[in-house]
C-alpha cells in the first residue's frame, strides 16, 4: 500500500540544511582567509582569476516520528468515506514510513490513545517496514487521545533534530495543542500536523432525525441534523481554523486530510509542501 501510494515521489535524497564540504556541490562563495584551500576552485581561478570556494550540501540521516492518534473518535467511517479515519491515518503513516526508509532515514510510528499503544521504529533490532506495519495493523482505536503523553514517549526516539508528524482529528485539544507544538518545535524539529477528518464531521450531511452518541464520552444527543447543519459546519470551521492558526503560530505545517479524498492526493499535497526550497 505505502509503496503504491508514494510511487513517483521518491525522486531525490533528503538534504541537510547545513552546508559543508562533503556530498553534493551546492554553490560558490568567495574565499575568506582561513578556508581550506582544498575546496578552492583552481580551474575557475585559472579562467577568471578570482578565488571561489566550492560549497557542498551535506547529506545527513534524519529521524522522523509519526504519531498516530488511535482514540475512539478516529474509529469513524462516514457515509461517503471508504474507510475509518484511523485506517486512513494508518495508510498515511505507512506511506510516509516507506518513503522515509527509502531515503535512508530512521522512522518511528507511535500509536496512542490515552496511553501509548505501540511504537515501531526502524532503529530497533530486526525491525523492517513490514514488521512495523504488522504491528500497526493490530491496533484497535479506543479511549481518548493524550497527545502530550504520546509526544513525551516519542522523545525517546526523536531526541535531537528531526521531524514529527502528528496524525489525529485533534478533537478536544485546541487548548493543549499550542503548548504541544511549542514543545515539539523547541528542539528545532520540523513538525507537521495532519488533521484527519471525515466528510460527515465537516458537513453533517444526514437527512433524518438521529441520536448521536459521542464515541469517547458516550454522551447522547438526539437532534435533527438538517436543522443544525449550518450551526455545526460553522463550529467545525472554527475548530479547523483554530488548529490551523495554532500551527501557523508555531511554524508548523498543517494539512487537512479528508477521508473521502484520495489518499494519493493527500500524500501529493504533503510532499509538495515538503519540497525543499529551491
Amino acid at each position, binding site marked *: 500500500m505505502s509503496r503504491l501510494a508514494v510511487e513517483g515521489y521518491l525522486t531525490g535524497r533528503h538534504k541537510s540544511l547545513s552546508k559543508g564540504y562533503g556530498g553534493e556541490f551546492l554553490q560558490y562563495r568567495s574565499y575568506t582567509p582561513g578556508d581550506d584551500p582544498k575546496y578552492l576552485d583552481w580551474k575557475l581561478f585559472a579562467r577568471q582569476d578570482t578565488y571561489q570556494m566550492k560549497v557542498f550540501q551535506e547529506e545527513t540521516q534524519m529521524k522522523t516520528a509519526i504519531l498516530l492518534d488511535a482514540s475512539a473518535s478516529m474509529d469513524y467511517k462516514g457515509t461517503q468515506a471508504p474507510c475509518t479515519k484511523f485506517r486512513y491515518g494508518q495508510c498515511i503513516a505507512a506511506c510516509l514510513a516507506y518513503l522515509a526508509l527509502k531515503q535512508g532515514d530512521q522512522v518511528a510510528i507511535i500509536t496512542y490513545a490515552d496511553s501509548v499503544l505501540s511504537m515501531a521504529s526502524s532503529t530497533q533490532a530486526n525491525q523492517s517496514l513490514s514488521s512495523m506495519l504488522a504491528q500497526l495493523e493490530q491496533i484497535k482505536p479506543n479511549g481518548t487521545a493524550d497527545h502530550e503523553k504520546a509526544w513525551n514517549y516519542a522523545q525517546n526516539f526523536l531526541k535531537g533534530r528531526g521531524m514529527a508528524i502528528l496524525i489525529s482529528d485533534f*478533537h*478536544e485539544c485546541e487548548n493543549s495543542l499550542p503548548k504541544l507544538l511549542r514543545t515539539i518545535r523547541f528542539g528545532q524539529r520540523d513538525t507537521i500536523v495532519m488533521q484527519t477528518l471525515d466528510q*460527515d*464531521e465537516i458537513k453533517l450531511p444526514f437527512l433524518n432525525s438521529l*441520536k448521536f452518541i*459521542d464515541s469517547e464520552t458516550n454522551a447522547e444527543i438526539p437532534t435533527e441534523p438538517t436543522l443544525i*447543519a449550518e450551526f*455545526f459546519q460553522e*463550529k467545525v470551521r472554527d475548530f479547523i481554523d483554530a488548529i490551523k492558526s495554532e500551527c501557523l503560530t508555531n511554524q508548523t505545517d498543517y494539512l487537512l486530510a479528508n477521508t473521502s479524498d484520495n489518499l494519493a492526493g493527500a500524500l501529493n499535497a504533503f510532499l509538495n509542501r515538503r519540497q525543499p526550497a529551491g
Partner: protein
Amino acid sequence: MLSFQNPSALWLLTTLAVPVILHLLHRQKLQTIVFPTTRFLRLAQIPRDGRQKLNNILLLILRMATMTAVILLIAKPIYTKRIKLLDEDDKTAVIVLDTSASMATQDYLVQAKNNAKDTAKSLKNWKLAAVIADNAGNLFTTPSTNHDEALKLINDAKYSYLHGKHRKPIEKALALLGNASTKSLILISDFQYGDWAEKLEIVPDNVKLELKPTTPKQPRNNVAITQVDSRELGNQKIQSIVTLRNFTPTTQSRTVTVTTPGNTPQQAKVTLNPHALARTAFVFDKHSNDGEAKATIDQDDYPIDDQIHFWTIGFPPLKALIVAENENDEQLIYLEKAFNATAEQAQAAFDTKIASVDTLDDDIIQTQNIIAILSCATELDNTTWPKLKAFLENGGLLIVTPGDSPATDLVTLKNAGWDIAQANAIAKPIAKNASLGIAPLDQNSPLAQIFKDHEKHDLFTFPIRKHARLKNHTNTTTLLKSLDNLPLAIQYKHKQWNIVFFAFAFDRSWSDFPLTNSFLPLIRELVAALVPQNQGKKRFPCGQVIQDKNGNLIDTTKPSLAKLDDLYIEITPDYTESSIDTINLDDARKLLIAGDQSVASIDDDPAQPKQFHKLCAFLAIAFFAAELIVSAYSDKARRRQKITKTT
C-alpha cells in the same frame, strides 16, 4: 341480515394488526449513530411535523381499509333481508329433500332431516310444503301453516338407489310456491357432483333460494364393486371376476366376499390405488341350481355400492369360427384344440366351427363371437370384407395371423379399406438361435393375470424364427410383446371394432411357440378376455326403465337380478352416485337460478340476498389508489421539506 359465504376468511382480519404494529414501531424508533464528537452538535427539536404525522395516520387507515376490503372480498358478504315472521300470510316455503343414492353416505339423511326440522322451526308463520326429490317429484305435501304433514313426509323419507335428477322435484316445488308474495325454496342435499352437474336454470329471481348442504365426516372413503363378470369354464366350473373401483384419493384395502349357490363363500383381499380399478377372480363349482349370487365388500361411508348381485347361469359358449386355407393347416388344428380343450386349465367355453375361405357366408359370420383368419387374409374375396365389417360392427372379435407373406396380408387389409392395418413389410428371418420369447405387457394384461411371475417360466422363452413387424396405430394396444420389446400381438379397438393382429402364425415354421397343452390356456384366456363379457347377460343401472315383451315394467328401483324374456339381467347401483366429489354452492346456485344474475335484479327482490363482492373489489382498488396518492404526496412533501431545511 349480513352474513358471509366464506366466513373463515374473516380470520384474516387479525392481519390488520400488522400495519398498526409496524406503524407504532416505526414511530418510536430513532436511529442512533456513534459520532466522533458531539461537541459541535446541539439539541434540536425532533420535528413533529403535524402534516407528516397526519399523512402517516391517513396512510395507516388507508392500508387497513384496503386490507379490510380485500378480506371482505374473500369472505363474500351477503345481505339477506330479515324475514318478518309476523302478520304475513302469503309467505310460502318449500323444502326439497334430496334422497338420491349418494344421500346414503354416512349420516347424511339424518343430518338432512334435522336440517329440515330446524328450518321448519324458523319458518313458524310460513306456509310450508315438502318435496322428496325421488326423481319424479311425486312425493310431496301441499303448503300449509301446519307443518306436521311436511315434517312427517320428511321424517319418513328414505334414500333411494337412484341417480339424483332434481329438475322435476324442483319444478314441483316451484309449482307449490304458487303466487305467494314471498317465496322461499330450500334445497337440502349433499350436493354431490353427479347430481348437480346439469344446468337447470329454473328458479326465478323472485324466489329466495337457500342451499343447505350436509357436512361429511372427514375423511370420506368409498370403494365400489362396479361389476362382476362371470363365465362358464370348460371343466364344470364358473369363474367370476369382481371389479372394484376406488373413488378416493388414497390407497384403500377391502375384503371381497363372493357367495354363490351351493358353494361356501370365498374371500379375497384387494388393495386399490387412488382412483384405480382392481380385479380379483373367483372360481366355483358349477351346480344345477346355479343362479343368484352376491359379491360384497367391507361397508364404507357409502354402503349402496358395496354389494352387487350377479347371475351364475346364462352363459352361452363363445361361438368361434376358425378360417384357414385348408383343414390340415397346422395352426387351425392348434387353435381348434385350444378352444375345445376341456382340461383343468381350460378357461372358457367355446363352440368352435371350422370354415374354409370359400364357405364363408353371411349367416355363419354374423352369428359368431370370434372369427380367426389364420394366414389366409389374402385368399378372402372382396365380398367377404364387408361381411366381416358388419361382424365387427356387431361387437365381434376378429383374429388375424400373418401368412407366408405378411406384408401381402396387410396390404390386402389396406386394400379392403382397413387402414388400421399398418406394418412395415416383413417376415424378416431372425438369427437361428435367437431367443426372443413372449413377455406379457404388464400386470393388468390378461396373460399376466394367468401366468403370474411369468418371467420365471421357461415356457415363455423360445426362438422366433420370423415375425411380422407390426406397427402400433392410434387405437391399438400391445397385448403381447417379445422380450426385445417387439409387438407380437396388438389389439385394435375403436368404437365397435375389435381386431387382434398376431405378428406370427401358430405354426412351427414361424417359431418354436410351444404348441402343447400347457400353452393352450394362454390362447384360450387371451381370446376369452378380449371378447366382450357377459354373453347372454345384460346389466342396467338402477332407475333404468326396462319393459319385457308384454310391456311389463321391471322393478329397477334397487340393485337386484331379474329375467327379461330369455335374457338374464343384473340391476346394479348407479355409479355416478359413488363419487365423493361435491359441487361448489355458488356453482349450484348458478346452475339453478334462471336468467342473468344482474345486481339490479337482485336489488329489486327484497328476498334475494345482496352480494357485495363488487363493492368490496371497488373499495379495495379505491383505497389502494388513495394510499398510493397519499404516499406519493407524503414523499414529495418530505423531500421538499428536506431541501428547504438543507438550503
